[in-house]
């Protein structure tokens, strides 16, 4: 049981890292990694939204959609759940913790239609995970995404000073860099015998 949970966590954080192996969330990944501060804020927001939306969508999938045989509508329903939840979090944070809202609130708006958030419930549904496993997948993916953002932000702060060919400035060189990090992450794939 515990072993199973640990396997899911490590697999989702390192081996199937969302950015480097599954290529999800690239828009955000390249968008917010210009500065370390935004990268850290984004990681915190993303991880918490992922865990909560994993739990919410599991509850609805298990208790509403399966009994009613609505599995084929999962895309429509999950995106409704996620965007509804993010909208609610936005409003609640603004009222309850304005300080936190001004630090992290701007990222919430970016999250609503993001593939990486939607991917967690979809993977959970297709793997038929139970509640604990779903939460672990959410947490592991969040941790993996945070790791990727922080690595990339630290490199890009230095990249500003580098002398890059004009045509490769900005995104193209970041893609090549990401490729190199992905190569390093390939080394993790031997950690768990699948």
């Amino acid at each position: 049981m515990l072993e199973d949970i640990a396997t899911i966590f490590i697999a989702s954080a390192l081996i199937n890292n969302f950015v480097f192996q599954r290529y999800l969330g690239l828009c955000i990944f390249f968008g917010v990694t210009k500065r370390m501060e935004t990268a850290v804020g984004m990681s915190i927001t993303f991880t918490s939204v992922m865990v909560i939306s994993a739990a919410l969508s599991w509850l609805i999938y298990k208790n509403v959609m399966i009994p009613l045989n609505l599995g084929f509508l999962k895309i429509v329903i999950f995106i409704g759940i996620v965007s509804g939840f993010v909208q609610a979090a936005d409003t609640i944070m603004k009222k309850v913790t304005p300080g936190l809202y001004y630090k992290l609130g701007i990222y919430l708006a970016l999250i609503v239609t993001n593939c990486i958030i939607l991917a967690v419930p979809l993977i959970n549904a297709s793997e038929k995970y139970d509640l604990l496993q779903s939460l672990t997948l959410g947490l592991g993916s969040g941790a993996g995404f945070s790791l990727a953002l922080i690595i990339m932000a630290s490199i890009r702060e230095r990249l500003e000073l580098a002398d890059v060919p004009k045509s490769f400035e900005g995104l193209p060189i970041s893609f090549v860099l990401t490729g190199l990090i992905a190569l390093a992450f390939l080394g993790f794939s031997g950690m768990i015998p699948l």
Partner: protein
Amino acid sequence: MNEKINYWKIFKNGLFSENPVFRLALSLCPAVAVTSGVKNGFLMGVAVLFVQTMSNITVSIIRNFIHPRVRIPSYIFIIATWVTVTDLLMAAYARDVYKDMGLYIQLIVAFAIILSRLESFASKKNVLPSGVDGLGMGVGFLLALVLIGFVRELLGKGALWGYQFTPSKPLLIMILPTGGFFVMGLLMGLFNWIDRRFFGGKTTAEVHMEGHKHGSH
């Protein structure tokens, strides 16, 4: 609308000057994820083409009935409906590729490019120009995916569309995740270079910034 609309110009816009992948740098996730071969890239491109065109047309037809304040959620549900249609069709008729690509097909719903075209084009124009715009963007996307898939499959497997024409595998790294990022970066650099050298255009970074100003993310 009486003014004459240049459909070819709208169509061409999506092909090169606002190519979703190389120029606007939107919806990059599938561009690297499914393009380990030409065939996967092509099918993904067709799926996006279909969803983009149909959502453009749908929004254009019912745009007068959507209250501006709820437009984004309505657009998302329209896209989600068409993605579900595509998803079920693919699951029924293309089972072998669906196993690898299923997740990415479902995630078309979160593509920035589709939503931003609905917001900036289809919500203001008539049905025909909207459909053409969707076609142009979709074909631009399709071509980009096929191009990346072509480079990766040729170099990684020595094959095209699954057909092996040389027994050697020159650069196996190209079909690994790493290769996807490399090819993407190099092609983007090449496009920038061509544009700067021959057309005096801007770099991807600058186009990207402008895209952010009048597109949603």
